[in-house]
């Protein structure tokens, strides 16, 4: 067996085009993803990050910005940012600086967010976005910086008042900024999906979009075919259109809808001879449209400056190397290895690597067995059933050893695929050892040719009319196979029955 390549070969997809009245248009999309660091305490305070706590239960006096309180950085959060950077093959900056981003809002008690502006902790990296077997888009990552999350304002509890919960205030976020290398709504969703998978492999973010652990701002502009390639020649943005930013999206489907709407809105304006105003927009999921949140004139003036409460963050190369040495196998490498080591298709490998637990389950089932057969049973039967019953793999009633047992029984010819499905049902609802169940319940496949021949002879003898028809019309041989399977309770080896029926009837 040859060593697995680091990544499977791929070709870049073509950009999605939208036909306008004046010709074709393309989309250019960049994303800023906020990923919550999977830490117990906050970035600069020792309050809990627990989701769903009672309002303001996770607020220390630092988070409430009481006078005299000072931020002290959480070393674990630094490590997670470095891990994430290494996971996307990015350069790590051994010296980075925290800045204050100034604005006033009731859920930001400090009056500023501590972020990193000029000197982020992570530099340029890349994410390979899987589009389909053999097709992927390499999206360049510009930077990742650490910053504080803001609190939550609730506006619908009182007509005159807003309610503020500071539990999220100060929670560590990694802002992952992509270059505008995403070329369509589907690619945008796949980018987010792949990034989420990488973060989950690294264990640096749980990727839970419903709970807001991962949210994205999406920048969209449109251009004519060829303009994007001209931009890429020397990163000259003048070839691209004016962009609009759609804020705070936390659903793949909404992101796709918002991009589609926004691109068409911009094209309509441009084709009418208008110009795009650079602005921040919000997506209305009910109306499926984007609308102005604030224009460039109203844009915030954040007046960034280095936070005088915090020294520059300096880390050692040796520490970074230690973190690098402890990285797990990442999705691209795992996919390549599943293909080369277990012989599964790239499509199946892509399904299997979507969650680290899924891949681990498959490997446990496939170890020492037929990889393709194992993949079929893990994906189609087990994942299919788990999906249907909305169960996570951790709650699967069938473990890898049991499913491996089923695969063994099929592989040894002890049971047919059809009986295996019955066995799967028994394991799912009653549990137990697959080999024992097959033995005790007499589910073993009949491969004894003598027994099969006897059954075939009986069916042929009982149906002389059908025999005549089948001789004239060989497709009817299938009817005999079905009858034999019926009288043997589905336990006869189907291939053997088929062969024997054809031999006895003298048809091909």
């Amino acid at each position, binding site marked *: 067996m040859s060593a697995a390549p680091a990544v499977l070969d791929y070709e870049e997809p073509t950009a999605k085009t939208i036909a306008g009245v004046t010709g074709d248009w393309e989309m250019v999309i960049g994303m800023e993803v906020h990923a919550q660091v999977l830490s117990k305490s906050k970035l600069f*305070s020792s309050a809990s990050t627990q989701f769903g706590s009672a309002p303001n239960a996770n607020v220390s006096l630092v988070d*409430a910005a009481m006078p005299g309180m000072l931020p002290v950085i959480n070393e674990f959060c630094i490590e997670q940012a470095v891990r994430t950077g290494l996971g996307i093959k990015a350069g790590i900056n051994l010296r980075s600086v925290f800045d204050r981003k100034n604005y006033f809002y009731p859920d930001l008690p400090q009056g500023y967010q501590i972020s990193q502006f000029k000197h982020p902790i992570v530099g340029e990296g890349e994410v390979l976005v899987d589009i389909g077997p053999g097709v992927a888009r390499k999206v360049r990552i510009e930077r990742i910086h650490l910053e504080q999350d803001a609190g939550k304002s609730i506006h619908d509890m009182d007509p005159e008042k*807003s309610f503020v*919960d500071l539990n999220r205030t100060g929670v560590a976020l990694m802002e992952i900024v992509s270059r505008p290398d995403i070329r369509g709504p589907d690619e945008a969703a796949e980018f987010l999906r792949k990034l989420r998978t990488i973060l989950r492999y690294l264990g640096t973010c749980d990727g839970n979009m419903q709970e807001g652990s991962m949210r994205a701002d999406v920048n969209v502009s449109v251009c004519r075919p060829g303009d994007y390639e001209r931009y890429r020649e020397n990163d000259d943005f003048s070839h691209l259109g004016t962009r609009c930013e759609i804020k705070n999206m936390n659903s793949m489907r909404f992101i796709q809808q918002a991009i589609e709407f926004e691109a068409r809105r911009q094209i309509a304006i441009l084709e009418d001879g208008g110009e795009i105003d650079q602005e921040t927009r919000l997506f209305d999921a009910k109306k499926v449209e984007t609308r102005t949140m604030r224009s460039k004139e109203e844009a915030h003036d954040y007046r960034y400056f280095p936070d005088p409460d915090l*020294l520059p963050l300096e880390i050692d190369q040796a520490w970074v190397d230690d973190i690098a040495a402890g990285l797990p196998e990442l999705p691209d490498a795992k996919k390549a290895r599943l293909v080369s080591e277990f012989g599964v298709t790239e499509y199946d490998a892509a399904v299997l690597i979507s969650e680290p637990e899924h891949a681990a389950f498959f490997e446990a089932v496939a170890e020492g067995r037929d990889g393709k057969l194992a993949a079929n049973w893990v994906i189609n039967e087990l994942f299919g059933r788990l999906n249907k019953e909305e169960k996570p793999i951790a709650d699967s009633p069938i473990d890898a050893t049991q499913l491996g047992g089923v695969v063994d029984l099929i592989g040894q010819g002890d049971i047919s695929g059809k009986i295996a499905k019955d066995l799967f049902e028994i394991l799912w609802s009653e549990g137990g050892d697959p080999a024992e169940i097959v033995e005790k319940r007499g589910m073993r496949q009949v491969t004894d040719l003598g027994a099969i021949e006897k059954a075939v002879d009986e069916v042929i003898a009982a149906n002389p009319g059908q025999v005549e028809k089948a001789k004239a019309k060989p497709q009817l041989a299938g009817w005999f196979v079905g009858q034999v399977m019926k009288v043997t309770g589905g336990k006869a080896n189907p291939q053997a029955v088929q062969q024997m029926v054809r031999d006895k009837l003298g048809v091909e």
Partner: protein
Amino acid sequence: MSVDADTVRRVAKLARIAVTEAEVKDLAGELNDILTWVEQLGEVDVEGVEPMTSVTPMRLKRRQDVVTGGGDASRPLANAPETQEGFFVVPKIVE
């Protein structure tokens, strides 16, 4: 650098400091004086000199990822002018 009346009004608005029209002219002058004074630093040649971030050599202090703070909503809420059901209550703020 010269600070004009509009810049004073804008800076005051961004800092949420109430400045009356009568004060604008004097403040512009004072800010210009301060900036001119600071600008003298520009005369020093700092080519090749790293910015100094601390008088003594210090490393940014780190803490372990342990929860020891928070856990009592009554403390941060103690000084709030208005609270309800554990929330801070503020005048409606819909952007």
